């Protein structure tokens, strides 16, 4: 099981802050994950419509979309950050 967490408008559009998912083995990279999640329903489709803008962290470190998700315990999806 992998823990997925969502923030800001990704969270609002998907309609939940987090979930545990048993990811199929064919999902190797972050890009694969975004493509797969997008087909899970309207909320996901709406949140992940433009995957290029989605930022991703694996186990609380920034990664790019080519990164392997092998061994990930927690994967976070969120919009570009606007702190500071």
């Amino acid at each position, binding site marked *: 099981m992998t823990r997925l967490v969502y923030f800001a408008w990704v969270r609002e559009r998907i309609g939940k802050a987090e979930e545990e998912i048993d990811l199929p083995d064919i999902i190797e990279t972050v890009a694969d994950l975004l493509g797969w999640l997008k087909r899970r329903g309207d909320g996901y489709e709406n949140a992940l419509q433009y995957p290029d803008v989605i930022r991703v962290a694996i186990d609380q470190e920034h990664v790019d979309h080519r990164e392997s998700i092998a061994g990930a315990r927690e994967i976070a999806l969120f919009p570009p950050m606007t*702190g*500071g």
Partner: protein
Amino acid sequence: MVTGAVVPLVSVRLEDFDLAAEVRKLTGSGRDVGAVVTFSGICRDESGTLAALELEHYPGMAEAEIARIAEEAVRRWPLTGLTVIHRVGRIAPRENIVLVVAASAHRQAAFEAAAFLMDYLKSKAPFWKKEHRADGSAGAWVDAKETDAAALDQWG
């Protein structure tokens, strides 16, 4: 005289900060401080159209990411102290959002480290701002600025 590695003070919290008290922590460190630069980020009132900002963050990663940026600043500049406080939750216009305090023997290191921290915080620390409008209309998430991403380039 205190020497050795500087450990940045990092805090993510609901409560406001006390600028003078945070500066005193770094000037009273026992190190030879000659320059202290502070940056306070304040909630603008957008000409009265903004009721409040809602600051969301990624607990755990927000602290860790700020700490990573702060450690990088300590490696790059000869600092005698570094503090970063980022508030979360509902913040009204004119309230503080973020504080960076950088202390050094020399002014250039203090200025550069504080500016570096803010540039990286804006683009790399997992915080998101949602606006609540004064007219009660639905709030919008603040868009990230291209200029904030571009600001990172200068630091190589």
